[in-house]
């Protein structure tokens, strides 16, 4: 009987494990359906944005009865000066106005006369509109006082209208955030977060699946624990990357195609590249930890509990990012966190997509994660090796680290 050649390089073992992960996952219905659903959601979101964006009307519409007609022109002017686009329409009488309030075609109704501002609304007065009306009321009172002192309200108005703030050049030039890039940043954050969550968890579940089905003993009689772990992480990472690229390319393509996105193609491509880089860095950093934590337990029900400490960090970074950055993209706290390795994978891609990240910050954050990964591999391999053969009760992290 001829003896088959069994010399195998360590990497071919990793490659075999990875290709098994890739082929079983790509063929799984769950993966195909979830990718399809994500793609449909992204495209649908873009189409909705397009439809909503096309029908932009005035911020508020006011009706006025004939007696309040002199208020119409100053109202529009005041609105313009504070950035509110206010439309006005004449209405025959108060009765007709109330009917229009009820059917929602006007937001507020000016009634009675022009010597004072009398406003009627259906339920409550919008804050911005109230500000405009308050200024208007002040102007009306001012004009009547100017008249009483024999002045010319029109002259005063002209002087007021021509007054403006003398804006000196700022000490530090702020980054001019583009609203579309902000949206891209939010989407990048959500994608990275979901990918880390889903793929990271599936690494932990895969490790536990091998433990639960006991196939791990058979596998470890042929390959070393680190090969099994590395193969699994690489395989699932590749599958996640395919999903991420598909979503990124289809999303940006649909955005540019429908005209919803008007940023330059190079900025869009830059966003996708950064997304991929940070997905890879974040995924490897976290999935190695997830693999080690998953190895501590023997049942699928215990996976979420085991990985929750690491998951908390992912969630914390994401929550800070999604709650702070859209309204305040240059927030100092988020800026500092985004350079710290554990938060960087969720925060940095959001900031990069929004723009205005100094080059040194981008380089340092990538560098720190790249430095941390070998350390994590060493730690995780140790935990994994010591815990993966112990079935039954949850292995304590301390025991897994200590045992040689």
């Amino acid at each position, binding site marked *: *009987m001829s*003896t*088959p*050649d*069994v*010399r*195998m390089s360590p990497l071919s*073992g990793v490659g*075999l*494990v990875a290709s*098994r992960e890739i082929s*079983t996952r790509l063929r799984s219905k769950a993966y195909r359906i979830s990718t399809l659903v994500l793609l449909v959601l992204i495209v649908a979101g873009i189409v909705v944005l397009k439809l909503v964006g096309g029908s932009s009307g005035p911020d508020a519409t006011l009706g006025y009865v004939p007696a309040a007609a002199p208020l119409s022109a100053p109202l529009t002017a005041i609105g313009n000066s504070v950035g509110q686009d206010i439309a006005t329409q004449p209405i025959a009488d108060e009765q007709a106005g109330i009917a229009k309030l009820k059917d929602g075609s006007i937001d507020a109704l000016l009634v009675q006369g022009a010597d004072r501002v009398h406003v009627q609304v259906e339920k409550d007065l919008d804050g911005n509109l109230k500000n405009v009306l308050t200024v208007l009321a002040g102007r009306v009172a001012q004009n009547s006082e100017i008249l009483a002192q024999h002045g010319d309200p029109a002259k005063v108005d002209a002087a007021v209208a021509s007054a403006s703030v003398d804006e000196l050049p700022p000490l530090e030039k702020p980054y001019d955030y583009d609203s579309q890039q902000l949206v891209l940043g939010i989407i990048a954050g959500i994608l990275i977060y979901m990918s880390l969550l889903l793929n990271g968890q599936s690494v932990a579940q895969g490790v536990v*699946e*091998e433990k639960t*089905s*006991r*196939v*791990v*003993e*058979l*596998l*470890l*009689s*042929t*390959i*070393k624990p680190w090969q099994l772990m590395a193969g699994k992480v690489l395989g699932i990472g590749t599958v996640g990357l395919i999903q991420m690229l598909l979503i990124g390319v289809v999303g940006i393509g649909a955005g540019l195609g429908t005209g919803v996105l008007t940023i330059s193609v190079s900025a869009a491509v830059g966003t996708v590249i950064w997304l991929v880089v940070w997905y890879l860095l974040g995924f490897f950093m976290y999935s190695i930890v997830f693999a080690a934590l998953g190895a501590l337990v023997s049942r699928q029900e215990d996976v979420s509990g085991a990985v929750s400490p690491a998951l908390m960090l992912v969630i914390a970074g994401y929550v800070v990012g999604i709650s702070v950055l859209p309204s305040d993209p240059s927030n100092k706290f988020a800026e500092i966190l985004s350079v710290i390795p554990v938060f960087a994978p969720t925060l940095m891609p959001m900031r990069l997509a929004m723009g205005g990240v100094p080059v040194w910050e981008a380089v340092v954050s990538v560098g720190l994660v790249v430095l941390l990964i070998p350390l994590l591999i060493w730690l995780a391999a140790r935990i994994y090796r010591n815990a993966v*053969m112990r*079935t039954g009760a949850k292995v304590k992290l301390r025991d897994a680290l200590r045992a040689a």
Partner: protein
Amino acid sequence: MPEPGLEIDAISKRYGTVVALEQMTFDVRPGELFGFVGSNGAGKTTTMRIALGVLSADAGQVRFAGSPITHETRRHIGYMPEERGLYPKMKVGEQLTYLARLHGMSAADAKASTERWTERLGVAARRDDEVEKLSLGNQQRVQLAAALVHEPRILVLDEPFSGLDPVAVDVMSKVLKEKAADGVPVVFSSHQLDLVERLCDRIGIVRSGRMEAMGTVSQLRAGGAVRLLVDAPQAADGWAVNLPGVTVLGRDGAVTELELADGADDQVVLRAALASGPVREFARKLPSLTDLFRSVVTEHHHEEAAA
């Protein structure tokens, strides 16, 4: 000096204060079927796991073909873990091919070998089914195929017969014998002692992490006392009580069971029986492996009780 096969040399393993293995030593020669028996927790599984490199030993050495076993030579071992396990959602054929490739086979060889072994073990029709859809018996056959698919040069099987139906037991026995005939050292553990007795060339009895007795069935028997069964219907009760070196173990109807001390003459017993009348049967009763196993285990219980 026989050609060396798999040698387990003075392996020790402790878990904290618990001694799992203490100087465990035995060897399995090429072409030999070695039976590994012992109570639960005696250290059989631990020994096998150490041989496979799944566990590390505190002391001692495992050798194959005369040199210490390495990660590379371990790929020649066909292993069936006590804890059966395959990917439940992976198809039988793909799974076996994958395992063969992990053992270093080329893709084409792995596929051909998978086809050969699934046919040989009667699960060829299920190659495209997921493992979890198979009956327990068929899952066991796939598990055996997983141990054989890479054409191993050593076989280490932990409880290969547990949970098998009689037909599968026959298939398994035949395969193991064939492998041994090909010159492969085969070691397996089992609680089915009659099966071990029938199949194995040599047997090792383990107790508390030590090899207590080892040899062929007849060598193991040689150590025990000789028992006689005498069917003498007309003999009076107590006919053998006063014979030199003879202990009466009991009488069931006409049949008396006797144990002879070392050096006692069975011909004296025969003459005494004939003196009582006709003797229908006079036979040496060979102790079964079960008896030998019990005596090894209980001997120690007495020692421990006395200590």
